[in-house]
């Protein structure tokens, strides 16, 4: 097999594995922030219990995210040294800021979150939680800025060595044309992923004991989040798609399966089999003019086709076409779950609806799958470039040897499934344990003696605390 394809497969494998963890830790950090804020505001022990329940999971997820992320730094040097040499002056500093944020905000204050409560008191402990949540968002900002610059490069010049360098201000580089759309879409995706995971865990425990106060509380919170955020994410995705059509039209045409130009309005292709060799979509099931309606907000607006681009400048459409449909299909299913939960809530049956709970368990991992499918869509859709329109993937790699790459890819696969498989099993074990319903009430509540009254005395087991 071609060495460049193997190098791409290796990066795709490691980055896909890696992003599972940040997509969870970004959302979990904010969830912990909300839980601790609610605990401090209301004094209800259930929030402190849930905080403790998810903090340990967050620490493991954060650790696995750090470890799985290290590998990619090496790959930049070993497999993509030409890209690193050429784009390093632009992407290097932005990635360094991400590392600094991870060091000084996330990792530093995570220590206080884990070990500091007895020493720093609740207010400073909450400050640490805020810093970690803020740190995850700032880290995401830098990484998305780098990736967005690779998709829609701006604010650069090429120096005498052929390197990309800032052309004056860094602001056009950081705030490149696709950056705000990607950042919003990615952070919302993390929140949605986390809400589905939390909702799935809660539903799993509700199916066994629907009186569990912790499970009820987190299920209610997760379903509110899914119901509110899923439609927002669909709107954010639509805005992102319009931005991509403006800056990377070939990617959107591959997502839509539009090989032929559509001078009087493009159809919306629901399904089909893209054939890059023949440059046609086989067995297409489509809705006439709906594609132009979505992409141009005008059913008769003309759209180009992939055939308008030279063959060697088109992304491989089959992968992009299907990964996009997986993402969108799961997004619609998330919306459906949110609506299902609203109906159950309106009928007063949120905690007494086994089919809703089974659906939530089934949808628990859906966010991770959708996030990876989305990244596959955007990264494969950027091909054949690493820096869109500027630097070809074929010109970005190191001198590579296919046997060495195949061996290291195999080694990565084995080691990752062993190490991270064990980590994921540990996480599932933590999540399979129900939140304890009779945890002692945190002591600072002003209306009674500290640490004496058990939580259920103030949080009746069958109440709907966050409804």
């Amino acid at each position, binding site marked *: 097999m071609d060495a460049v394809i193997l190098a791409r497969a290796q990066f795709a494998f490691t980055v896909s594995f890696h992003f599972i963890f940040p997509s969870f830790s970004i959302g979990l950090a904010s969830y912990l922030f909300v839980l601790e804020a609610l605990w401090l505001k209301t004094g209800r022990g259930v929030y402190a219990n849930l905080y403790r329940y998810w*903090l340990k999971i967050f620490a493991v997820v954060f650790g696995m995210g750090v470890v799985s992320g290290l590998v990619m730094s090496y790959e930049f040097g070993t497999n993509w040294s030409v890209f690193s040499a050429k784009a390093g002056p632009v992407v290097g500093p932005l990635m360094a800021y991400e590392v600094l944020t991870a060091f000084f905000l996330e*990792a*530093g204050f995570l220590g206080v979150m884990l070990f*500091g*409560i007895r020493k*720093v008191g609740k207010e400073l402990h909450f400050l640490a939680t805020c810093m970690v949540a803020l740190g995850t968002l700032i880290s995401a900002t830098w990484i998305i800025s780098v990736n967005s610059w690779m998709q829609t490069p701006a604010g650069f010049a090429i120096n005498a060595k052929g390197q990309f360098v800032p052309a004056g201000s860094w602001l056009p580089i950081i705030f490149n044309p696709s950056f705000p759309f990607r950042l919003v879409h990615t952070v919302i995706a993390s929140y949605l992923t986390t809400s589905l995971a939390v909702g799935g865990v809660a539903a799993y425990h509700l199916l066994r004991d629907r009186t569990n106060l912790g499970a009820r509380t987190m299920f209610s919170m997760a379903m509110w989040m899914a119901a509110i955020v899923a439609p927002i994410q669909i709107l954010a995705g639509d805005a992102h798609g319009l931005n991509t059509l403006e800056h990377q039209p070939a990617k959107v045409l591959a997502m839509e399966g539009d090989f032929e130009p559509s001078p009087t309005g493009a159809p919306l292709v629901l399904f089909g089999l893209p054939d890059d060799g023949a440059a046609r979509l086989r067995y297409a099931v489509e809705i006439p003019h709906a594609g132009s309606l979505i992409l141009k907000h005008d059913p008769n607006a003309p759209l180009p086709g992939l055939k308008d681009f030279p063959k060697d400048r088109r992304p491989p459409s089959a992968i992009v076409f299907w990964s996009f449909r997986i993402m969108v299909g799961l997004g619609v299913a998330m919306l459906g779950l949110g609506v299902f939960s609203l109906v159950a809530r309106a009928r007063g049956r949120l905690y007494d609806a086994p089919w809703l709970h089974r659906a939530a368990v089934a949808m628990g991992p859906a966010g991770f799958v959708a996030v990876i499918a989305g990244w596959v869509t955007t990264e494969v859709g950027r091909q054949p470039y690493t820096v869109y329109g500027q630097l070809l993937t074929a010109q970005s790699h190191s001198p590579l040897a296919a046997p060495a790459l195949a061996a290291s890819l195999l080694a990565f696969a084995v080691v990752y499934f062993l190490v991270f498989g064990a980590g994921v099993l540990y996480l599932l074990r933590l999540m399979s344990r129900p939140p304890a319903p009779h945890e002692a009430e*945190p*002591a600072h509540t002003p209306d009674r003696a500290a640490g004496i009254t058990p939580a259920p005395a103030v949080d009746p087991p069958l109440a709907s605390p966050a409804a």
Partner: protein
Amino acid sequence: MTGAGPEPEAASTPGPLWKRIAWMAAIWGASVLALGVVAGILRLWLHA
């Protein structure tokens, strides 16, 4: 549930503010230092 996090005793005996801030700085510094040591070892290993 076991594990780190807000404990009932913590809120009832917070101690003076300067002491709590000092503890926070110490734990924060130790956490960053621990990560720095790991990064340093990796760097030494790569440069060996």
